C-alpha cells in the first residue's frame, strides 16, 4: 500500500503542469532532441523570469520551417530572449506580452531603452505596442531611425490612436507588384 501511494505521488509530480509546460509538443515534432533541449532551457528561463514564451516557440518553429541548422535556431531563440529581457528593463515588470514583443523588435531596430520609456510616458494610456511596432516597420522599410522615431513620438504626443500610427507606414514607398524578394 505504501509503495502504491509513493508511486502515485511521484507520478502526479512528474505529470504536474510545471513539468508538462516544460515540454512543448510543437517543438517535439519539429526539432531534433539536442536543439529541443536547448530551446526548452531557454523557455524555462523565460518562464522563470515571467517573460512570454510564445515568441521563443515561434522563433524556433520558424527556424525549423526554414530548415535552419540547430545551433542557428538556438542562437536566434537566445537573441529573442535577450531582446525580451531588455524590453522589460525598459518598460517595467507590468508590461504586457504584446508590448514586450513590440519593444524587443524596436530595440533591435535601433531604439534605446530611454526612448522606449519615453514612448510609455507620452502615449495615450501608455499603450506602446502599436507605436513601437510601427517604428520598427518604418525602420525596416528603409526610413532612418531618427526620422522614424520623430514621426512616431510626435504622433504619440498628439494623442494619435492605433489606426493613426498604422497610417504612418503609408509614408513608405510601396514595393511595385511582383517586386518582393524571393529566396530559393
Amino acid at each position, binding site marked *: *500500500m505504501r509503495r502504491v*501511494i509513493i508511486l*502515485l*505521488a511521484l507520478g*502526479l509530480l512528474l505529470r504536474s*503542469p*510545471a513539468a508538462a*509546460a516544460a515540454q512543448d509538443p*510543437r517543438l517535439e515534432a519539429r526539432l531534433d532532441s539536442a536543439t529541443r533541449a536547448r530551446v526548452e532551457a531557454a523557455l524555462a528561463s523565460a*518562464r522563470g523570469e515571467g517573460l*512570454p*514564451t*510564445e*515568441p521563443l*516557440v*515561434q*522563433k524556433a518553429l*520558424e*527556424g*525549423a*520551417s*526554414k530548415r*535552419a541548422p540547430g545551433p542557428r535556431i538556438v*542562437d*536566434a531563440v537566445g*537573441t529573442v530572449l535577450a531582446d525580451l529581457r531588455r524590453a522589460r528593463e525598459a518598460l517595467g515588470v507590468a508590461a*504586457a*506580452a*504584446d508590448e514586450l*514583443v*513590440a519593444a524587443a*523588435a524596436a530595440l*533591435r*531596430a535601433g531604439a534605446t531603452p530611454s526612448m522606449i520609456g519615453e514612448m510609455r510616458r507620452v502615449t495615450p494610456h501608455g499603450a506602446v*505596442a*502599436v507605436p513601437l*511596432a*510601427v517604428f*520598427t*516597420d518604418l*525602420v*525596416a*522599410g528603409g526610413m532612418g531611425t531618427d526620422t522614424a522615431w520623430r514621426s512616431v513620438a510626435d504622433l504619440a504626443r498628439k494623442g494619435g490612436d*492605433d*489606426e493613426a*500610427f*498604422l497610417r504612418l*507606414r503609408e509614408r*513608405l514607398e*510601396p*514595393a*511595385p*507588384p*511582383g*517586386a*518582393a*524578394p*524571393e*529566396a*530559393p
Partner: protein
Amino acid sequence: MHPDDRSDEPRDPFIERLAARLREPVSLSPEVERVVLDRLRARPTQRRWPAVAAALAAGIAAAFAAGLLVGRWSAAPPVGAASVRPIEFALRTPADSAVVLVGDFNDWNPAATPLHRDSDGVWSVTVPLRPGRYRYTFIVDGTRWRRDPAAPPALEDDFGAPTSVITIAQR
C-alpha cells in the same frame, strides 16, 4: 511581557529552588531508555499512512490546480478579450501548384494555411487574427520563399529567408 509576570512582587525562595530543580534535565538509566525506545518502535505506524497520504495527495492536487491555472494564464493570448479580425493575405504569382502561408499565427506550419487562386491569378486566404504583431511569409510551390510585397519586411530575419510583418490594431 506576560500580564501575570509581576516582577515587583517578592518571590518565595522555596518556590524558586523547586522551580530550578524541576528545570534540570532528568537522566534515565540506559536500561530505561532502551525499554522506552523499544516500546515506541513497536507501535504500529500503518494507521498513520492514510492521513499522511491524504495530506500529500491534497498538497499535490493543490499544486496541480495552481500550476494548471498559472499555465493557462501564461499561455493566454496577450489581448485575450480583444476581438478576432479576418485578415486577407494575397499574392500574385505564377505558381504552378500551390502557395501556402506560414507565420507566427500558424506555428510556421506549411500544411496549415494553403492559399486559393482566383481567375486573375491572385492567390489569397483569409485568416482570423487577434490584434498583435505577426511575422509571416509565403511558400510558393513548396520551395520558393516570398515575402508579402504589400507589407513591411521583418527586420529580425534570423534565418535568411524573406519575412514580412503585419500589425493589427485593436479597434
